[in-house]
């Protein structure tokens, strides 16, 4: 089969997207299609694989942010070009695909939309960061057979939960996807999703062979979040404000920060609060441990001392004396950090 012997020339393609050379990248992908490579393989093994590589290059500080964004922009154009050249009659049913409110990683979902289309679904892709209300309105207006929800970052899980509950209340079963739903998608079930898939192929197989899922009444166990979560979310501004006030005391270098640096530090503290809130919402300390571990890795690749992260965590922890679960969660994460 030609499809197997054709070389995707991944390195060359990576250079093209890294240079923002949209025309050449599109030409590269369409040449593969012309050579008989199936569109699914171009999407998964060329666009998807390259996009993962771009993420790694950013994480290891080899690529700047502008370059990463430009590369992603090119990938979207290539994907659109691949889609435009492959038409498949819609034979299966209608499906709505959306990224959870606040979730901006739209490209994986867009690739999934194309894979579904190639499998014969009529897909309404609503894009990145879809407010729950707009999603539900769309469901009532189009009456799809399934909603596919993408969530790449666990901090969006409370909003994903609201969206899943609302979709199911609107009578449409939900399949969840994206690494935000945790290893093996373990949070997807907690949040009431009817199904979860690790990859686009897996989701497509499930939708093709085992859909719709049997109707089940809502499980009372899906009421999540406790008062610690509520307090943490509501006091987020004060939490960050106090931490920023104390920062120069415990981290003298911060005295020389300019406005932009101070703002990014405040945002960083916000991320700590958000991941902590998500961990409390689901009662899954792993979410926070993973976030802290990941952050530590990225810091190492940028030659930043571990101390900075520990100080940020302590500034947040010191304010949470009445939050036993939050304290435990932070302590677990700190204990897991390399010495």
């Amino acid at each position, binding site marked *: 089969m030609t499809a197997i012997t054709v070389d995707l020339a991944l390195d060359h393609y990576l250079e093209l997207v890294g240079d923002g050379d949209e025309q050449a990248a599109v030409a590269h992908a369409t040449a593969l299609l012309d050579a008989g490579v199936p569109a699914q393989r171009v999407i998964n093994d060329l666009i998807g694989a390259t996009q993962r590589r771009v993420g790694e290059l950013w994480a290891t500080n080899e690529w700047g942010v502008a370059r990463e*964004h430009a590369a992603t922009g090119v990938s979207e154009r290539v994907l659109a070009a691949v889609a435009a050249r492959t038409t498949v009659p819609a034979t299966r049913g209608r499906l709505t695909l959306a990224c959870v409110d606040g979730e901006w990683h739209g490209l994986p979902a867009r690739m999934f939309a194309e894979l579904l289309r190639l499998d014969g679904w009529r897909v309404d892709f609503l894009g990145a960061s879809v407010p729950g209300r707009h999603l539900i309105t769309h469901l009532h207006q189009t009456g799809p057979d399934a909603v596919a929800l993408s969530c790449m970052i666990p901090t969006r899980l409370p909003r994903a939960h609201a969206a899943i509950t609302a979709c199911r209340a609107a009578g449409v079963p939900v399949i969840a996807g994206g690494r935000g739903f945790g290893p093996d998608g373990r949070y997807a079930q907690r949040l009431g999703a009817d199904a979860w898939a690790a990859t686009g192929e897996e989701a497509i197989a499930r939708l093709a062979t085992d859909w719709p899922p049997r109707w089940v009444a809502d499980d009372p166990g899906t009421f999540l979040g406790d008062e610690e979560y509520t307090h943490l979310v509501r006091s987020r501004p004060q939490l960050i404000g106090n931490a920023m006030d104390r920062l120069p005391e415990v981290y003298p270098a911060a005295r020389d920060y300019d406005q932009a640096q101070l703002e990014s530090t405040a945002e960083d503290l916000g*991320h700590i609060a958000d991941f902590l809130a998500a961990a409390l919402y689901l009662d899954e300390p792993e979410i926070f441990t993973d976030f802290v571990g990941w952050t530590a890795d*990225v810091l190492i690749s940028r030659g930043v001392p571990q101390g900075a992260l520990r100080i940020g965590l302590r500034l947040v922890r010191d304010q949470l004396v009445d939050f036993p679960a939050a304290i435990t969660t932070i302590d677990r994460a700190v204990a897991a950090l390399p010495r």
Partner: protein
Amino acid sequence: MTALTPPDAGEPLTRTVPVAPAPALLRAVLEAATEAMLLCATTGDTVLLANAEAQRLLPGLEPGQDATTGPLGELAAGQHSFRAEHHGRHLYGMRRDLDDDHYAWFLRDHTSETVHATALEVERSRTAFLAEAGRRLSASLHVRRCTRTAAELAVAHLADAAIVVLPVTGGHSAWIRLSPGHAAEEGTLPERVLAEVPGLTEALDGFPPIPSRWLDPALAPGWLFPADLGPIGALLVVPLPGHAEPAGALVLARTGPHAPFSAEDEQLVRVFAARAGAAVAAAMLYQEQVDTTAVLQADLLPPELPQPEGFELAASYQAARDSLRVGGDFYEVIGPVDGGSDTVIALGDVCGTGPEAAVMTGKVRQTLRALSLVDVAPDHMLTVLNRALLQSGRRQRFVTLVVGTVHRAEQGRVRLRLASGGHPPPLILRTNGTVDVVPTKGTLIGVLPETVVRPATVELAPGELCLLYSDGLTEARGGPTGDEQFGEERLRRQLAGCQGMPGAVAVERLRQLVSEWVNGGPRDDIAMLAVRAHTRPPLSLRGGGAPNASPYLVAARRGDRRSRSRS
């Protein structure tokens, strides 16, 4: 008082009680008992005694017979207790050994309890079914989902196969069919074939259903159900009552020995049909409204962007969180008209939100479209627009906007003429990373009889970008404290960070940044429109780029910052 009154009943015993009652008296007690009793000899299982109740429950069982060969087989099964149905009665039996040679059977008639329990069970399952039906049918406002749910519920609880047929529109009826071993089948039926199904036309016309026993399943046309369903034993066709007119009809088919629909079944089906009909009718009403709104909205939604030669256009529109899709902000792009070479762009903000603002938006865009047909400068467009709005009656609303023309100049440069009517001036991202403010200003439009507009002309070198935006972007409240405005300074700084990005990527990035800034809180409409002069690839982005705030990038920025602060 009888001799059997127990001592603690309060009345002293006044007569001497015989220690053993006479056999005749014992026999009379046995006969009077409401429990059936059989006394049997262990040898040969011979019935020695059967009281009156036993003879009533087991007619034909006489003393002297062998109990195990009698009418009730359970007596021979060797169990110590049993439940059985005998001559239409539900019996409970219990065996007790009396001595080595005798045993007794005690039998109770549980018929009425069992009947009640069964009736209660049936009633419970009906209630549960109707509760589930109510919950699921009320979930969706979409006609197809509603009919699908109705069919699913019907095959799960009422029949082996079900069809929902919607009212005829344009000579056709939409239908959905569920039958065992088949995925849901949907399609349309021509009106003329509907009459082939017994009772269907009547049901679609809203007449009360014909009792199932009057419908001959053999008359159902072959196409009605898949052949593998087997012979249909009973057919039931009921109307789905809607809003004063029928919302469709439900066709149910049962196969096998228990096929016929009982009177209770038919009653239940009608109750279910009433709920399904109400849900489908509500969904139809909603659909009508959606269709109407969609027609009205079509002109108000942001336009598709042309992709002209020489420069890139990118735009974004986000309606306020609490409104849907149309609001007070708008942008417009009108490609070159015959003979002309300029593209007209506009971005503005009508005071207020909601339908009235949207109508005003439509008016403004229409006027601009007309003005673009005659070759006029942007500042002149604003003056004419101002006059037109003032003459069109209601003056409560005003609009602020930037209008511009885009012209391809030599060497890949792009020339823009821009005029602002009370709107935040556009920003320009230069190749060296600086951000300029376009020096145009003017009075807002639609209020004063005379407008003062100072237009500006700017040029973009290849790769440079001009951003038009609405104040929803800069006034978005959020940030770490939750109540700080995004602000013009932050916008300029973040725009500077977009250097080297294609226009669409830059716009998406700003949109993401402001969304993170707001962090789920309320915000106004936000519109952005970017014009970027084409650059020649490859871009040299290697090692470049600005600090960034994508959600996972906490550490990265910290890294950038720290390394900067150390150097």
